[in-house]
């Protein structure tokens, strides 16, 4: 029971969320074999997509009894009732055309062109224009390629894609209604919902890709290798505005960034005999992110979180939304050390902040980039081993080089008050005169150094390797029992183990979702380790 709920004789709330997604596609296709060597396949079409969101929420309090739960809001005090509803809509209208031409089934060219219109953009910028061209050359059909290659195909492509993954109504001014308590009554008010940006338009990514699909030994080993460069311009960024302007931010198309990397995958049938077979797959991809332009601004600070303030910075030449904060280079061990430092008011065991600009004071100017939210590379490994009727199937996944800001650590280092629950290591291994090689600063009066909340101690390497699934199964085949064909029994584990130095529950976590400017771990739910035994029966 909460303080509020207890005092108000129960608060019940019912929330109803409804989404209607309408998709209409009309396409015409034209397939023509001009002769045995020349083939054309053309498609033209129009698609219409509409998403309608509605929700309804009602809440009341002052119940005679808890028994009603949320099943009878009418039993609460009607004067305390609170009702809201919402409706919002967005629409996409697209025209598309694509032509595939193939010659001798060896040389292929695909050209496509899309015009996408989104209701989310400004009056003049609703439509984005997205061409693409792809070339393919089936080398394995050429005589000069040795028979060792059962498959060899060279690919190259260029194309532009658009992003409209933003909220509705950002290009227009709307007024949010509300109430104010004036003259002993609630009177209606309206205030602007946002600073509108009538020039809002599609974010565009130009992607170059070259790749090879390969297969050896009758495709016993096959896979692909790719290299890509993605140049994104007119990034959809929620650009912070001076708070004095009355608005915290404006959604803007600004600047550009570049992503590039290799992708490699291999899939091998290592053993394939009647009694014993082993197949394995492996893939790895690298990624390099670099901001190329931020519209002439020196930097953009973002990623605001309630307990930490801004957590990231975007600068040309660095990865997008890099973690930005203070660098702790040790803990104070003596009063002389404090007196000579840029933090003369510090106490023993306080973190020593690097005085980057050497002005003998620790100010926000001393912040540096502390880490990147982008992984250097990610990989996956899968294996299926079958011996007679037994099968062992496993999948491993991992990522390397991404950092993660652990807000739980921030709360542990800087508790709202000293009685707060927090993670034990911060207390057990804190700096004390008899524990000077501690991992954490003193936990005595941490509020006195709390201006330095975003620092290298709370940003951790979130590299990990995880056994995602492992399954051992046994198949009873040849069952001669009426309709019963086979029975498979299995034991399966999910998230069996994770190898990581990350101190939180889950190095993969991102509490604000993948589109957030700052990747944060904040009271994230741990991933569950699941053990299952099961039975599959086939008739």
């Amino acid at each position, binding site marked *: 029971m909460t303080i509020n709920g207890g*005092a108000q004789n129960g608060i019940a709330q019912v929330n109803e969320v409804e989404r209607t997604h309408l998709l209409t596609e*009309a396409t015409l296709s034209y397939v023509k074999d001009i002769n045995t060597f020349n083939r054309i396949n053309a498609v033209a079409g129009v698609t219409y997509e509409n998403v309608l969101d509605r929700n309804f929420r009602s809440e009341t309090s002052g119940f005679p009894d808890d028994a009603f739960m949320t099943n009878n809001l009418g039993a609460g005090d009607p004067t305390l009732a609170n009702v809201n509803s919402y409706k919002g809509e967005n629409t996409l209208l697209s025209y598309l055309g694509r032509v595939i031409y193939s010659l001798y089934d060896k040389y292929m060219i695909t050209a496509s062109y899309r015009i996408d219109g989104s*209701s*989310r953009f400004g009056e003049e910028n609703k439509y984005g224009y997205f061409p693409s061209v792809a070339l393919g050359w089936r080398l394995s059909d050429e005589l000069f390629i040795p028979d060792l290659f059962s498959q060899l195909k060279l690919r190259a492509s260029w194309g532009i894609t658009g992003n409209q993954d933003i909220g509705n109504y950002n290009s227009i001014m709307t007024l949010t209604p509300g*109430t104010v308590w004036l003259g002993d009554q609630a009177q209606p008010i309206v205030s602007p919902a946002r600073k509108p940006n009538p020039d809002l338009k599609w974010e565009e990514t130009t992607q170059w890709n070259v790749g090879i699909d390969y297969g050896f030994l009758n495709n016993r080993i096959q896979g692909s290798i790719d290299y890509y460069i993605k140049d994104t311009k007119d990034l959809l960024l929620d650009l912070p505005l001076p*708070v*004095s302007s*009355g608005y915290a931010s404006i959604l803007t198309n600004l600047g550009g960034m570049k992503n590039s990397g290799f992708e490699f995958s291999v899939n091998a049938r290592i053993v394939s005999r009647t009694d014993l077979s082993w197949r394995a797959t492996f893939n790895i991809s690298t990624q390099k992110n670099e901001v190329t332009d931020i519209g002439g601004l020196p930097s953009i*600070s973002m990623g605001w979180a309630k307990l930490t303030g801004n957590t990231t910075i975007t600068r040309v030449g660095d990865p997008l939304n890099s973690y930005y904060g203070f660098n702790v280079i040790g803990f104070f061990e003596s009063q002389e050390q404090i007196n000579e430092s840029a933090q003369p008011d510090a106490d023993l065991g306080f973190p020593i902040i690097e005085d980057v600009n050497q002005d003998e004071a620790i100010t926000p100017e001393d912040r540096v980039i502390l880490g990147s939210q982008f992984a250097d590379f990610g990989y996956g490994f899968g294996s299926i081993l079958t011996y007679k009727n037994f099968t062992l199937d496993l999948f491993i996944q991992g990522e390397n080089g991404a950092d993660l800001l652990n807000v739980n650590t921030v709360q542990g280092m800087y*508790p709202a008050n000293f009685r707060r629950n927090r993670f034990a290591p911060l207390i057990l291994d804190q700096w004390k005169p008899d524990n000077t090689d501690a991992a954490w600063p003193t936990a005595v009066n941490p509020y006195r150094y709390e201006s330095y909340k975003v620092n290298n101690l709370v940003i951790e390497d979130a590299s990990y390797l995880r056994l995602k699934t492992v399954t051992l199964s046994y198949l009873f085949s040849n069952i001669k029992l009426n309709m019963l064909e086979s029975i498979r029994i299995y034991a399966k584990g999910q998230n069996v183990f994770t190898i990581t130095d990350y101190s939180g529950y889950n190095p993969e976590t991102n509490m604000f979702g993948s589109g957030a400017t700052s990747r944060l771990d904040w009271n994230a739910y741990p991933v569950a380790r699941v053990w299952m035994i099961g039975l599959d029966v086939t008739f």
Partner: protein
Amino acid sequence: MKTKVNILKYILVLPFLFAVSGCEDVLEEQIYSQLAPGNYLTTEAGIESAVGAVYNAFFNRTREGYRWLMDVFEAGYAYNEGGSFEARYAQIHEDFLLSSLSYQPYDSWSDFYTTIRNANIVLDNLDAGEFEQDFYNLKKAEALALRGYTYWRLYNYYGPTPIFTSSQPEEDKVARATEQEMMQRIESDLTEAIADLPVEQDDWGRITRGGAMGILCKYYLNTKQWDNAASTAQDIMDLNQYELQLNYQDIFDYGNKQNTELMVVIPSDAVNAGDWVIQGLTIPNDYVLPPGIATYAARLYGYDSFVDSFDDNDTRDDGFVLEYVNTTGATVPGYGVDKTLITFKYPLDPNGNGVARGFDFHILRYADILMSRAEALNEINGPNQESIDLINDIRERAGVDPFNLTDFASKEELRDAIFQERLWEFFIECKSREDMRRYGNFISSAQDRGKSAQDYMELYPIPQVEVEANPNCEQNPGY
């Protein structure tokens, strides 16, 4: 069967119809749960709603409640224990550890500039539309009064700050105003508003002529424009609109909420627009409360020295709880261990709803105007009978012996008495910071308490997010 096929056909044809007709309307955003400004803010109802939004930003009860408690911590007559704002707010302000990354400077900056933005929306739309003159004058005056007050609060906290007089400024990275520009803005907004504001408003909580004059008077006083402060105070007295309540407790009595001593308030209502800070964050949660009323973990404790400072006959400390029997029947000591509960100056709201109370924030009451005139006259002429009489009005109501002119040999002596009297009269009313800065002991008294306060901390830091988004806005020195 036939119909089904037909429907399918139409569905398939639909996109082509858009394609052929080039129907742009399909992508027009439809607004359902909000309003479009164009046709709404041209009506009187629209303008009223926009004015309501100015009040709403000004009436941020949670943040205002925080500011009132920070004022207590910075003055150092009471302190906080517990609660989630202990380390984030209370200790930072008690110990003078503010930085540009702290919460309070950001919260206030953001509230104040939201109020200013909303006021500018009213002013711009009033000028753009066609309205009856009386309506135009009144709404303009309300918006200007709140904007002027808000610029004064900004100036009071941060020194001169960027000035916006339009809701659609050509440039949003505005440099800080000069002292002179800032003061002119505050004075002209308030003066212009006073000319058109009525002496009485139908709605409790709307700004009145007397309220705006009171704000201007306090601005003059805090900027040490003594003549203006004295004459504005006199003008307010001449309105014959306000009077002191007979007893100190009457000012805060829930049965007497809209009394004639109050000039500017943030009106509250426990159910509809409650405050949960002033009592929700100050009373220990083992204190026996009436049913339906709750409190959070934070507590506000007064120092013994503060309790001792009151005269035995003074009724202004009658609400102090020196010890209490808690929910488990144990007696909890307060006075003697620096833990007197001082918020009971504000009685418990009989209609309290959980942690929310219908606590009206008294931004300005008439007693302050009398004390302001007394202070200004002393600064101009030194000890004088009129100042003494004004102070005695306050003292006599509180039940303490009146002063005699002969008690004070110098301007400084009377000044000391005035500031002491102000603390007794206005504790937990968000006056201490500005009073102590005016008196000149804001930093030195903190240093005397052993805090690491330094001279530059007279002003709050500009919030870091502002400085980062607006390179033209220079940080206050020292931060």
